[in-house]
């Protein structure tokens, strides 16, 4: 990264606004207070343009409720041999992984702000979207917001257990962290919630217990009734694949190597061959951490406008030209 950055990218957003400044300014923390304030104002102005409008977020609600209804319909259809199990398996896996994205918008109240008439749908999306993952909304929301407050803090970031030196070890860790005796993933979340100890944390623990025990009771009852293959392919395997996929792409990839804890270095800009959609928009995760109110499908566009400002702040944007 360049040691020094000129003033133009920092404040000169309009083309041809001027040549490089006479006094070169350093990137990131070396910027003076006035430049930092100006950059922040420009950043916020861009973020405001892309902030979620709950009235336009209905596709998240429609997709979540539609996919959940389909997933429920898969059960009788598969049990009556109308739906091929392989097809149900593929679709359920997509629903499991994709459900986290819609739930994630609900965690940030992007589908409906508190006290508005859209709030009901925000909460409905959150409650339904991660049922396949056996991951209650109350726990998901608390832990995700905790992750935002304490990103990359080894002690306080609930997702820090996803840290791994490389992509292969990261994939392995997504599995390892779910093992019953390992303090990772949801086991780690439970421990953090116990430590927090507030009524909301206790409620999240209660919800987790109810959902986990309910799911296990369903698994056992269905399996001993002759539908173990249906459970395995419509819920058990999709959940495991979905969780690993989410952990890798939504936690490891955008935060690796998890060394930065500052506003502009707790995520990384990266490019992946699987592309924007399969990586669930995570290449632009820096925008999400700066402005969680920008919904996932708009972070790409906000990033394009913010890029000069981010570079002036010292963010390495070289991986993504647009």
């Amino acid at each position, binding site marked *: 990264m360049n040691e020094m950055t000129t003033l133009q990218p920092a404040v000169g957003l309009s083309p041809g606004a001027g040549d490089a400044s006479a006094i070169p300014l350093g990137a990131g923390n070396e910027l003076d207070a006035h430049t930092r304030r100006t950059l922040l104002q420009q950043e916020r102005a861009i973020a405001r343009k892309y902030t979620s409008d709950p009235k336009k977020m209905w596709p998240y609600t429609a997709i979540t409720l539609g996919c959940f209804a389909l997933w429920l319909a898969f059960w009788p259809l598969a049990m009556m041999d109308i739906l091929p199990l392989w097809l149900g398996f593929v679709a359920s896996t997509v629903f499991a992984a994709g459900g986290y994205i819609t739930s994630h918008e609900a965690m940030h109240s992007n589908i409906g702000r508190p006290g508005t008439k859209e709030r009901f749908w925000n909460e409905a999306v959150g409650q339904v979207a991660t049922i396949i993952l056996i991951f209650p909304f109350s726990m998901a929301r608390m832990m995700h917001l905790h992750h935002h407050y304490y990103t990359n803090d080894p002690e306080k970031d609930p997702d820090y257990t996803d840290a791994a030196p490389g992509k292969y070890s990261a994939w392995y860790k997504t599995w390892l962290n779910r*093992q*019953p005796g*390992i303090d990772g993933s949801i086991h780690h979340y439970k421990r953090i919630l116990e430590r927090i100890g507030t009524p909301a944390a206790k409620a999240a623990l209660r919800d987790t217990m109810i959902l986990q025990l309910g799911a296990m009771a369903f698994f056992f009852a269905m399996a001993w009734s002759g539908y173990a293959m249906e459970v395995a392919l419509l819920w058990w395997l999709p959940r495991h694949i979905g969780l690993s996929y989410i952990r890798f792409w939504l936690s490891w990839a955008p935060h690796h190597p998890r060394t930065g804890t500052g506003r502009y270095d707790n995520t990384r800009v990266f490019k992946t061959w699987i592309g924007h959609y399969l990586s669930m928009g995570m290449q632009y995760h820096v925008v999400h951490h700066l402005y969680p109110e920008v919904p996932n499908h708009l972070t790409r566009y906000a990033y394009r406008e913010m890029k000069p400002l981010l570079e002036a702040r010292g963010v390495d944007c070289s991986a993504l030209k647009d």
Partner: protein
Amino acid sequence: MTTAIRQLFYWMPFLFGIGFIAPLIAQMLEYWQVEAPWGLGPVMFGLLIGAPWGLYATLRGRWL
């Protein structure tokens, strides 16, 4: 109550071995029309694999 729930979750892998892995193995054998060894029925064979595997996961803390 809390202790009982903790114990239930501690033994969950063992219960999972009996409650889910065992019937899954049995139904996979039947689906692919594979005979269980030693003259065992599919469910008995499933239990023979699922229960010790679940116990192993409980005691060792991981399935593999």
